[in-house]
């Protein structure tokens, strides 16, 4: 009996030694990165000095990757919340492989970085002229940690500048992510393109538009969009803020925004969109393909600087509607012109409409769609209605 207990006990002890906390990693020993910025290669001063001392490896300098680590290292228990310490820390590396650059951080910083909490990827348009989106996003899409819900942006200037904030206590990556909420207020904010959507764009070789970030004086602004051409994956041009607005309306992703124009006495008059629907129909007449775009919108006359006109006068709505109608058409035509003539890229998504409505034709045009698109006429029809004038006293 004694032997049996001994056997039992020893086997239990062996069991205990077998298991150990091998994959355990305390959260405070890890560095979360919330933002990633990709730029054309440019060595940071620290890197330059390090390389001068011979600290380098076999690489071609093609990209500079900046990760935003949160929270920045701080020693001691409870951190002071007065904001004297920056809440984030940007780490930069240059090379020709995103993963290799990431691993280089491990010989620079004590905490390994993990990508679970990556929220925002910003790619500079300069870099996208040299490298295709597929090349840059390959690692990010393959990585197991990084979520497919990460949002992708384009920056007008250097992307690493979007990861710097002048305001104390603000983490730029979160700031950019949270600005997306303003989509409710203005259609100048495009619907976010997340990694999984980007993946489908890239591999179906479709052209698409990404929200553009402009930085000045430590502030980041959403301004316009950048167009990526599907078959090359390169950046081909920028869209203005109005174009971006039209783009969200055409794709039915925007239900808000303002249309401002100047009235008969050259005073500003503003229309606020309450609802907007667009319908794109492909028309095939023999070999001749064309698109009908119908915009239906209702809204409110929110502001007019014209003091002479009595706001509720019966003739005013018709007059104003006509003005706004013209303005909206103008804006739309400008977008169409840019996409068709300048960039030759269908970032609006006419292709998917054609695919659904005329699958047989689409199969024929699939391979050179962007070329076909640039030659396809688009007929625009706008139906704008002012339903109310806001509250005002008689």
């Amino acid at each position, binding site marked *: *009996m004694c032997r*049996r*207990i001994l056997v*039992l006990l020893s*086997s*239990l002890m062996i069991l205990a030694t077998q*298991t*150990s*906390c091998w*994959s*355990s*990693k*305390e*959260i*405070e020993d*890890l560095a*979360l990165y*919330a933002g990633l910025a990709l730029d054309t290669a440019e060595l940071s001063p620290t890197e330059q000095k390090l390389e001068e001392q011979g600290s380098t490896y076999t690489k071609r300098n093609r990209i500079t990757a900046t990760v935003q680590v*949160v*929270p920045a290292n*701080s*020693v*001691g*228990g*409870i*951190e002071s919340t007065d904001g004297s310490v920056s809440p984030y820390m940007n780490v930069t590396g240059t090379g020709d492989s995103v993963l290799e650059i990431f691993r280089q951080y491990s010989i620079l910083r004590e905490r390994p970085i*993990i990508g*679970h*909490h990556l*929220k925002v990827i910003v790619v500079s348009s300069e870099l996208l002229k040299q490298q295709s989106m597929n090349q840059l996003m390959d690692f990010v899409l393959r990585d197991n*940690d990084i979520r497919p819900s990460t949002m992708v942006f384009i920056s007008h200037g250097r992307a690493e500048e979007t990861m710097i904030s002048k305001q104390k206590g603000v983490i730029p990556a*979160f700031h950019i992510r949270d600005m997306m909420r303003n989509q409710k207020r203005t259609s100048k904010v495009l619907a976010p393109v997340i990694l999984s959507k980007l993946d489908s764009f890239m591999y179906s070789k479709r052209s698409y538009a990404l929200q553009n970030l402009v930085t000045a004086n430590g502030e980041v602004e959403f301004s316009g969009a950048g167009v990526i051409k599907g078959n090359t994956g390169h950046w081909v041009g920028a869209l203005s803020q109005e174009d971006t607005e039209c783009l969200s309306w055409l794709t039915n992703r925007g239900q808000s925004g303002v249309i401002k124009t100047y009235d008969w006495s050259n005073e500003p008059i503003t229309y606020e969109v309450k609802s907007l629907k667009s319908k794109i129909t492909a028309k095939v007449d023999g070999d001749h393909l064309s698109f009908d775009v119908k915009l239906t919108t209702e809204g409110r006359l929110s502001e007019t600087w014209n003091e002479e006109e009595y706001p509720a006068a019966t003739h005013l709505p018709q007059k104003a509607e006509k003005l706004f109608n013209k303005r909206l058409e103008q804006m739309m035509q400008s977008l169409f012109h840019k996409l068709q003539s300048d960039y030759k890229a269908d970032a609006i998504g006419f292709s998917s409409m054609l695919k659904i409505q005329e699958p047989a034709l689409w199969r024929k045009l699939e391979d050179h769609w962007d070329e076909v698109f640039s030659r396809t006429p688009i007929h625009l029809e706008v139906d704008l209605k002012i339903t109310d004038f806001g509250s005002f006293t008689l």
Partner: protein
Amino acid sequence: MIILFATIVSFVPGWAVFGQAGAALLVPLFLRYIYRSLYRFVGSGRGQIGHGTKTARQSQPPVPAHSDTPRPASFSGNYNSDLLAVRAAIGGNSDLHFREFTIAHSGARAVLIHISGMQNDRVLNMQIMQFLMYDLPAGSLSSAEIAGRLLPFSELKEEAAIDNFNKLLLFGHGGLLIEGLPCGLLVELPGSANRTIGEPVSEALLRGPRLGFSEVLSENTAMLRRQGFNDQLEMKSYRAGNTIQRDIVLAYMKDIVNPDLLEEVKNRICKIDFDFLAESGYIEQLIEDNYLSPFQQLQNTERPDRVISALLEGRIAIMLDGTPFVLIAPVTFSMLLQSPEDYYERWLPGTLLRLLRFTASFLALMAPALYISFISYHPGLIPTELAITIIKTRQGVPFPSLIEVLILEISIEILREAGIRLPKPIGPAMGIVGGLIIGDAAVQAGIVSPFLVITVAVTAISSFSIPMYSAGITLRMLRFVGMLFASVLGMYGTILFFLLICCHLSKLKSFGVPYLSPISPFRISDWKDLFLRAPMALMKRRPVMMKTRQNKRKS
């Protein structure tokens, strides 16, 4: 076809994977082996091998061994020798009083024996003595039958065996020996100092009867009887204990209880073979199905209303003299999280409170384990802003999360244990002050993170919301096991731990009733009273799982 087959074959893993699968299979087999051999080594309290099995019917429990001294086993009728025998056996007790006298008219000698403090002296002196010495009508008290006719006492029991007579005397009965009578008479029931009946301390309710059981068995049975008019409530008395015997009463509803269940409970009670049953916990441990299980297999309660409603569901109550805790058998898991208040309040609040309790018990069991697995293994599962806050607060903490949790959990458990021992007026205050100060100071000192303090506090509060104290201890204990699992295998381990508990629970039985019923085996009609408490109008039948003799609650 061949291509298809080849495709399938290409997915068949290599020998190494099969080997791993085989090795993984060894783990449960090994655990089972350990479990079996442990059970065989220790044996069950009932002197039987195996567990959870139905005990075979046995004739009678072995009669407790008596001393072999040659003493007259029964009264002879010879006054002198009988008295001498009694005196020889128990006369050495200083609190035993012998009062000899002569009975009126017949002139027979008699002796009244009693223990001081256990009898009302006034009754003894004024009524019994007076009657025997002056008022007894003529006639020889030569047999118990005649004595029964002549003596006008409501409590009158003859006892032929001297041993038993002595035991009863020392238990507090008043004893009477009369010349010529070949047996001893017991005239008065023992009455000793009792506490007043109070509110049940461990199961306080806001709404519901304030009555709790007391230490006196007869009072407890009376409380059950006083619940209402009924002729089917049956109580059967047993006596157990080898050195000091105690009364056990089985209570059940004759027309409801399942006869097989009743037979099983009686069997197990009869087989109790132990020195002394100090509390009903002894019975619980001696008759339960599986003593290696962390879960209790009999419910203990102080509330008569709880007992009577259990009886109406076809369960059996086991009452022991000397303790206010009554056992209810069989017990199912859901009973541990139910409170009588669920039924006293209207069904919507009752349901809400019950669901709250289920949530709380889950938290009490899993919260620290989840904390450890999130912190140490899955930082990606925490919302980003929270993750950042946790990192900030934990940056000064020198310990891995398991040690951190253990420090705080153990100190909270110590605090709780100390709170029970502390004198009543300062107990709660000490608990609050201790908890606050320890929590706050530990954070200030950088030993634990503030987030953990929240976790531990939620856990502690949750475990207090479980209405059964014993069930609360079970969860408190299992919590530590869960923490170990979480610290070794992360979320995977936590889920594994939960599954292990589920496996164990679904295998466990209490007196033949599956512990998890009505969840497994699935009985949809009993779900009315599981997570939800259906309106009274829907509670038409008794629980199916109890297989009651008649199942209608409504006419």
